[in-house]
Structures are given as structure tokens and as C-alpha cells.
């Protein structure tokens, strides 16, 4: 075994990853798009945090910011108490070892001209871990960890199934024993029967290595299944946050409630409306107003704050945070 984790995650900081008031605006040919607005969230050590939201909610931008692929316009992103920008300036290699990622399309993330053994060893080579003999041994271990048959070591990506290719990506991500694994829609492109296998593998990795994960998905059931805590994003910011079971079983924000009703579709109960299609997002007040079944006047003029309604369970909704109003709308 190599020396283990490069970063001392037991250092005296409370959280592994912490975002505070993060803003990110993209300039497009149709004007600026504020992808992330005053976003705050925390991932604790060994914790799986699920980030759920629809297309354009800003969830993948969060992943890119954490991975240093984009830079925030404002706010702070800290890893082990230190700004990500500082990590990347001073100790980029250590940060890249500590924070690894798995993406949606398994084949796009793999060099099609390289064999599986080479692909799994690549992170070790880049970070100068061991010699060729110890690396070959480590590749075998990693392939066993992700339940890849050792005989696949000489295959090229096109000779793999989607599930096998995603296992190769996970093995690559695990090679350097990261403290945080960022997973951006890691099962959305896979066949249904393969999705369950990959989700089970991620659960196993989290349990056995107490590796923290930022797990990003549009699917509330998938996020709920894996996560210790759930953060629901809408139009660039967190609208609800809390323990995994609480947010999905007792949603307080009307957008989370919409996600819950949409998720009951597969269970056969699909008389539910899907909610309206993406409306123009207002620039003042609550961004969800055009789709909200319970909006009051105040919602259009003043954006709600993220208020704690129960232990560790917060919601950004004027109606949810007011017991009288909540009783009224049922």
C-alpha cells in the first residue's frame, strides 16, 4: 500500500469542504448568466452530501468550482480550512490528490487509445507513486476494489460496457486515496441494471474508506439513497438543506415537494402534474415564484432567507418558515 492519504484530514477543522456566499456569473452571447448565487454549503469528513436540482440550477458549476475548473467571482470555497485558490497556487498536486472526480459519460472521460491497466495507473504515474512493479500491484488492488475482472486489464475502453468503463473511472479516482470524491451524475448515462451496481459500489467505498462525497444528480431518489445530507438547489442557490431522510420524506420547500411528486412517477402513481416548464426566472424575490403553488405577495418582492425550521433542516421559503401560513396552505 502507498503511504495513504496525503492530507491529514484529522487536522483541527470542522469541515472538509465549505462554500460561503459563492457567486459565479458566465458571460454568454445572450448576456450574463448568474449560474451560482450566494451559495453556501458544507461537506463534513466522511460525509456524503447530495446536491440535487434540475438543469441550469448551478449544481455542475459547483462541481467545477470545487475542482478548480472554474473560479468563483465572489465568496469563499475552503478545503480543510484553506481557500481552494490558495491550494491550487501553492500545492496544486496535493489538492488534486485529495479531491477527485467521476463524471456522467464514462467513455468521454477515458483516453480511447489506452488500455485499462494504463488508465488506472495513470494517476499514480502523474503523481510519481511507486515504481512500475508496485504500480502494477496497486492497479490489481484497485481493479479488485471496484469489482473489475483482472482479465480486463489489457482491454481498450471501446471493449468495455458502460458499467465497466465507469468502474475504471472510479478506480482512477480512488488511486490516490482522495479525501473527497466529486461525483457529477455518475450513473445517469448507464443502463438501469448497471446503475444499481455503481451506486452500490459508491456506497461501499464511502462505508469502507469513510471517503466524503459530493454527489450531484437531478434525481432525488438516487441522491436520497446515497446521501447523509441533501442540498436542494434552484436557480443558483440552495433552497432546502437537511438530513437525507428528512428532506425527501418531509420536504418543506415547494420546489422540493415538486421533486418528490415527480419522483413518485415510477411507483405507478403518476397522476401528478410535472410542474410547468422552465419559466423565466425573476431577478427579484424568490426565484421559484413562477412555478410555485403557494406563493404570497411577499415572495415576489423579497427573497426569503435560508431559515432553520428543525434541527439541521433549513428552507428558503416565506411560507414554509411561517407556521401560520404553512397551516393555511396545508
Amino acid at each position, binding site marked *: 500500500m502507498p503511504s495513504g492519504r496525503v492530507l491529514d484530514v484529522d487536522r483541527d477543522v470542522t469541515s472538509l469542504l465549505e462554500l460561503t456566499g459563492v457567486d459565479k456569473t458566465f458571460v454568454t452571447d445572450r448576456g450574463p448568466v448568474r449560474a451560482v448565487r450566494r451559495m453556501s454549503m458544507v461537506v463534513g469528513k466522511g460525509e456524503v452530501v447530495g446536491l440535487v436540482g434540475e*438543469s441550469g440550477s448551478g449544481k455542475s458549476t459547483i462541481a467545477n468550482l470545487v475542482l478548480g475548473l472554474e473560479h468563483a467571482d465572489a465568496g469563499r470555497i475552503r478545503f480543510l480550512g484553506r481557500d481552494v485558490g490558495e491550494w491550487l497556487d501553492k500545492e496544486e498536486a496535493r489538492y488534486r490528490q485529495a479531491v477527485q472526480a467521476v463524471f456522467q459519460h464514462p467513455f468521454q472521460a477515458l483516453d480511447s487509445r489506452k488500455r485499462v491497466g494504463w488508465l488506472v495507473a495513470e494517476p499514480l504515474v502523474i503523481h510519481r507513486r511507486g515504481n512500475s512493479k508496485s504500480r502494477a500491484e496497486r492497479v490489481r488492488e484497485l481493479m479488485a476494489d471496484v469489482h473489475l475482472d483482472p482479465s480486463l486489464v489489457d482491454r481498450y475502453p471501446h471493449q468495455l460496457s458502460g458499467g465497466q468503463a465507469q468502474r475504471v473511472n472510479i478506480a482512477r479516482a480512488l488511486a490516490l486515496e482522495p479525501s473527497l470524491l466529486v461525483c457529477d451524475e455518475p450513473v445517469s448515462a448507464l443502463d438501469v441494471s448497471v446503475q*444499481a451496481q455503481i451506486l452500490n459500489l459508491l456506497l461501499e467505498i464511502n462505508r469502507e474508506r469513510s471517503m466524503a462525497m459530493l454527489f450531484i444528480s437531478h434525481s432525488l*431518489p438516487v441522491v436520497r*439513497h446515497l446521501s447523509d445530507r441533501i442540498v436542494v438547489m434552484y436557480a443558483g442557490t440552495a433552497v432546502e438543506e437537511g438530513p437525507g431522510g428528512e428532506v425527501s420524506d418531509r420536504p418543506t420547500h415547494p420546489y422540493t415537494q415538486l421533486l418528490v411528486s415527480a419522483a413518485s412517477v415510477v411507483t405507478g402513481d403518476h397522476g401528478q402534474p*410535472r410542474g410547468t416548464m*422552465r419559466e423565466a426566472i425573476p431577478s427579484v424575490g424568490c426565484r421559484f415564484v413562477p412555478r410555485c403553488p403557494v406563493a404570497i405577495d411577499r415572495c415576489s418582492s423579497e427573497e426569503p432567507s435560508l431559515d432553520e425550521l428543525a434541527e439541521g433542516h433549513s428552507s428558503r421559503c416565506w411560507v414554509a418558515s411561517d407556521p401560520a401560513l404553512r397551516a393555511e396552505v396545508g
Partner: protein
Amino acid sequence: MVEDLTVTYPGAGRPAVKGVSLEIESGRTLAVVGESGSGKTTLALALAGLLDRRARRRASRLEINGENLLAARRRRWRQLRRTDISFIFQSPINSWNPTRTMIAQVRDAMSAAGHAGRMPELLDLLGRVGFEDPERRLADLPHQLSGGMLQRVSIAVAVIIEPALLIADEPTSALDSTVQSEILAILAELRSEADLAMLIISHDLSVVARVADDVMVLYGGKVVEQGAQAAVLGSAVHPYTRGLLDSVPRLDRDRKTPLPSMEPGHLPAAGCPFAPRCRLVVDDCRRAEPELIPVDATLAACPPAASSTLIAT
């Protein structure tokens, strides 16, 4: 309407599609569910006359709009694809010529279908499906539009020519996962307005639940279960269908526990294609290929499941 369709690719041991029969009435949607290698795409290509020249096709009936197409030549198929059969492919960017503007390609498609005069209607329809400012944006080349936008154009053109049959092969799986539900809502809405028969191919059960009236589950080229959507998703009989449904995370399931997952398995040379992965397998399954028989509310090709269901009830 197809009866007993079998398609074999040269050099392949087993047929890609074997003995499949289906019928879709206009105004209805049939979803074909299956994983990679199940034969679902081959089935769709056969229905659109798009099979590889070397593929061997056999069927006892193949009709669209009442026309017998068993002996139809490529030319007739080409004509049908302009006017009567629309196809929406998985990859929106590969469906369009990268070197020509969208408007030029859309115009060509419309006039080939004999609907050149209906451009204004198409622009209206595009606006309705969330394609903003269609007149200006269609002047762009395909790569200047997002996958979701391109797929909206594919769908609008596919629907407006009023085909008898619309085939959508994984129309949302190449898209950013969350544009999917918007595209599905559009498909469902336009399909019911246009009163056409739709065949949608998908491996995603939530897609199926949202758009399909009827469901056909393919495994190893064979239909293993079929029936009304609510019956197949709600009270599936075949162990493969049940396995698919069980492996999906649900809101009413224990969190952070392993999901029941079906281990991969090879396709056997004889017998039930699912036998190597099946938990109900008995010796007979490896000898003869089971036929579809009515069990509960669906048709299922699984004698062991059928007899245990009968005993249970």
C-alpha cells in the same frame, strides 16, 4: 404492425431480434425497454427500413398505415421516411449536418415531406416547445445550439410532417439529465395532439412511466414481457422486469443500503436468454425458449414465474 420479426446480423450467433410482434394504434405510445444488446435499436431500425444492408430480416407481416412493406424496396422506404415515418435519434448533434445552417436543413426536410408551406407553423411550434426566438436561432449552425435545443427542432420537424409513426430511439439519454423531463413533456404533448403512433426506445423506466401507454420489455432479442404500462411497471411478472424495477432507488426504500442488482451474464446459445442471470431458473429454462403467456395483467415469457404467480393467487 409487425408479426414475428427476426433480424440476424452476419457473423452473429444469435439473432439480434427474434420473433417480435407488435402493433401500435394511432394516438398511442409503445415503449420498448431493454439494456445494451437487447435488440431494441435493431427493432427500431427494422421498422424504419434502416437496417444495415447485410442484416437478414424475416417477418410474417410488416405494415405501416395498412401498407404491406415486406417486399418494399429501399426507394419506397426512403419515401416513407420523408412522409410517413419520423425518426428521432439519440444524439441530437449527429442528426444534423454540421456545415449547413439549421434553417436550410429544416426547409429541406419540410419540402421533402411536402410541407414546405408550413414553415410559419413550424416556427410557432418551436416557440411553444421552449425554443426561443426560432427565426433568429435557426440561422445558426448545429454546433451553436445546445443538445436540448437541437432535439426540440428534431421533434418539431418530426411531428409537424404528420407521420403515421414516430420512432424515438433514446431521445433524451444523450441530453443533460435534467433537460430530459422537458423534452419528454414536449413529446407526450405533441404526440397526443398529432394523433400519431409513437414507438419510444429507452432503458430508463422513469421515461417509460412518463410517456408510454404500453410497454414491451426486450432481453437478448426476445420479448420477455409486455402489457399496459401500469401493469408492467406496477405488477411485473418476469424476473428480468422485476429485477429492473427493484434496482431503481425509490423514495420509499431504505437509504444507504445496497440495491438489489442483477449481476451481468452472457446470452446462452439455447433456452431462455435470461436464464444465466435468473433467480427462478429451472432446468427447462435452459432447454426451450419460453413463449409469451398471459399472467395476471401482462404477457410474460416465464413459465416458473407464471406458475408461482398462479399458486400465489
